[in-house]
């Protein structure tokens, strides 16, 4: 053993015992199993969120039609669908898949540790997350139906039952979100401490793979921004149920306060989910371009810069929401400033491709697809951050298209990139490349066909969260565009079947994966596929950075981190 284990610490011996189904799959404290739990829960919630999108897009394209598998969408159902689509996709898909699943799976494996530092806290974190998902799902079935006041749940609509008409739904929604925050706080502390303290011997700060850095910085952002909203959620619950008036202007409260509490968290939250996806892309493009990451330290500094700046921009969501107009100047400046580090990150990724030997495997396609589409999301954000322009574009479909061009690359493309890349490690088998490529093109092309038309609708003055635009004389004429977007959505959804077929077929029948199918450097590729409980028989020691590809004078074009010089 390379490790000297203090005598009072019991060694892993239960790994050799036969484990029951329950202790192996349900109550496991193994970080890899918890990662799988998060991932499959996230995928399941993603299917629900996607189904919601299908239902309300059908309503928008064909108002009043009986949507197959759903039925006629009533106005309140429409509002509930869009509300929960947003909340699910961000809090129950992007967060668990990108932060929790990837963080749990990758952090210990990439830093050469046998598990997270607090395995039982980790398990508790998932269990609370699961409860939060169940509470949210339950809220659809209570009298009055699920909450229907947008995922930002602005009071007084969310705080007053007689306005929202969903007395139980709104409370359950707040409870679900608060539980979810509690789960990710625990998970976040675990990630941060693990990455800080449990790195393999020899792994210095600049030897940490970028995706680990990104997940850790994202966890820090989450932790430092979510506090006010947790306090706010408690205040909102009291407003709903105990008759307080924190957000009720008639009795001395202020609804704008909620918006500040929400967006103080809400904007850093964008970067909380963005950063892990950026990290995934960094890992993949370096491997498949056989290149060292361009200017590792610069990337790191841009990430820190983005993180700090992300706390100063929140009120750009509230430009026309009744804040004092003088404050808008400050937030315009900070918002445009944050484009600088992010643009730099994008440039660095593009520069990494220079001089590479690029093979377009499925994960590489997803990673490159991320860069190409995320750029659109990035540049359209500039329009919205500019206070003067936001007067017109606020809450139009332009905003909607903009953030789908950021969140879709983050949550969906990022997920597909990660899963196709680490699938061999997770399940010990290879995925089908041909099906993977069909799935890639079948997703990325319809995706653009859905949302580029929505930019146009936004410029035409079409607002969000309206269940039937044919009621508006000036907007009725654009119906064909809405139909086009909906049909593109159906096409995109049908191509996801290819993925699920590939996913489950490969999981059970795919060819066996070797330890290091992509010839990558990072530590997770030095153990078995899939890694055993405890990850390594002998924990690795690190000798160099994670991106030493194509080093001159070496025969092989990669140089694993644990290989002695």
């Amino acid at each position, binding site marked *: 053993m390379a490790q000297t284990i203090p005598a009072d610490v019991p060694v892993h011996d239960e790994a050799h015992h036969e484990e029951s189904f329950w202790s192996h799959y349900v109550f496991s404290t193994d970080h890899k199993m918890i990662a799988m739990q998060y991932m499959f829960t996230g995928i399941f919630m993603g299917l629900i969120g996607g189904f919601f999108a299908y239902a309300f897009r059908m309503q928008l394209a064909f108002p009043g039609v009986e949507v197959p598998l759903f039925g006629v969408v009533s106005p309140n159902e429409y509002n509930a669908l869009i509300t929960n689509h947003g909340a699910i996709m961000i809090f129950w898909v992007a967060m668990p898949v990108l932060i929790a699943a990837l963080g749990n799976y990758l952090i210990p494996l990439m830093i050469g540790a046998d598990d997270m530092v607090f395995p039982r806290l980790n398990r508790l974190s998932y269990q609370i997350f699961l409860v939060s998902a169940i509470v949210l799902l339950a809220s659809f079935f209570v009298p009055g139906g699920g909450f229907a006041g947008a995922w930002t749940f602005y009071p007084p609509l969310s705080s007053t039952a007689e306005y929202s008409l969903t007395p139980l739904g709104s409370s359950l929604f707040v409870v679900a979100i608060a539980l979810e925050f509690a789960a990710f706080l625990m998970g976040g502390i675990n990630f941060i401490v693990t990455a800080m303290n449990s790195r393999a011997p020899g792994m210095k700060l600049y030897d940490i793979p970028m995706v680990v850095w990104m997940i850790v910085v994202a966890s820090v952002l989450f932790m430092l921004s979510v506090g006010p909203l947790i306090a706010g959620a408690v205040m909102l619950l009291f407003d709903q149920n105990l008759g307080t008036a924190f957000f009720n202007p008639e009795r001395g409260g202020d609804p704008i306060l909620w918006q500040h509490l929400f967006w103080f968290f809400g904007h850093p939250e964008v970067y909380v989910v963005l950063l892990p996806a950026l990290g995934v892309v960094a890992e993949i493009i370096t491997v498949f371009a056989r290149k060292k990451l361009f200017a590792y330290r610069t990337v790191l500094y841009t990430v820190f810069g983005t993180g700090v700046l992300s706390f100063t921009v929140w*009120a750009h969501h509230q430009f026309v929401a009744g804040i*004092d107009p003088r404050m808008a100047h400050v937030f315009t400046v900070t918002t445009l400033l944050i484009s600088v580090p992010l643009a730099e990150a994008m440039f660095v990724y593009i520069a990494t491709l220079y001089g590479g030997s690029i093979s377009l495997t499925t994960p590489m396609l997803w990673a490159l697809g991320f860069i190409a589409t995320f750029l659109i999301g990035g540049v359209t954000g500039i329009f919205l951050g500019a206070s003067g322009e936001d007067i017109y574009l606020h809450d139009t479909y332009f905003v909607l298209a903009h953030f789908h061009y950021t969140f879709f690359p983050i949550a969906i493309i990022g997920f597909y990139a990660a899963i196709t890349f680490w699938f061999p490690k997770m399940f010990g088998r290879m995925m089908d490349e041909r099906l993977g490529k069909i799935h890639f093109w079948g997703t990325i092309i319809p995706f653009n066909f859905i949302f580029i038309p929505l930019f146009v609708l936004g410029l035409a003055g079409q607002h969000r969260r309206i269940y039937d635009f044919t009621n508006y004389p000036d907007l009725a004429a654009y119906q064909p565009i809405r139909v086009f977007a909906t049909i593109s959505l159906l096409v995109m959804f049908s191509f996801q079947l290819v993925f699920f077929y590939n996913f489950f077929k490969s999981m059970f029948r795919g060819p066996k994966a070797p330890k290091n199918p992509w010839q990558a450097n990072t530590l997770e590729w030095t153990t078995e596929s899939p890694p055993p409980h405890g990850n390594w028989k002998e924990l690795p020691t690190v000798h160099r950075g994670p991106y030493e590809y194509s080093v001159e004078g070496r025969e092989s074009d990669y140089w694993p981190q644990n290989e002695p010089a």
Partner: protein
Amino acid sequence: MSDATAESVAEEHVHHPNYTRIYVILLVLLVISVLGPMLEIRIITLLTAFGIAVVKAYLVVKNFMHIDIAKRYIAYLGATSLVFMLLFFAGAAPDVMKPDGSNWEKPLWQQTGVDITANPEHAAHGEDGHGDEHGEDHAEDGSH
């Protein structure tokens, strides 16, 4: 790894401050912070109440929580979270704390400060008198 653990154990055997002395100082400060406001001078109230709270918190954080012995980044972490809260306050206060601003006003502002109707005991306690500066508020209350 074992050497790192040993190091951290060694770090724990540091010089302990005289806890009893700190505790006595804290109690004295507590007495001052209670007595100070009894003078009913606003500036002294603020100083004794909040100034002393900061001093007490500092003493506890430094001597009981040993932040001065912990790694430097722990102090930075705490400071960062406090700074972000100041930032939040600065961003939200212009809207929430003000009765009016550039092109907006809150017409309900004056009457919503105290919600007397839900407060049955108020009539009994309202006449106690709490310093002259609150005279206006009493007048306001009377109208309900």
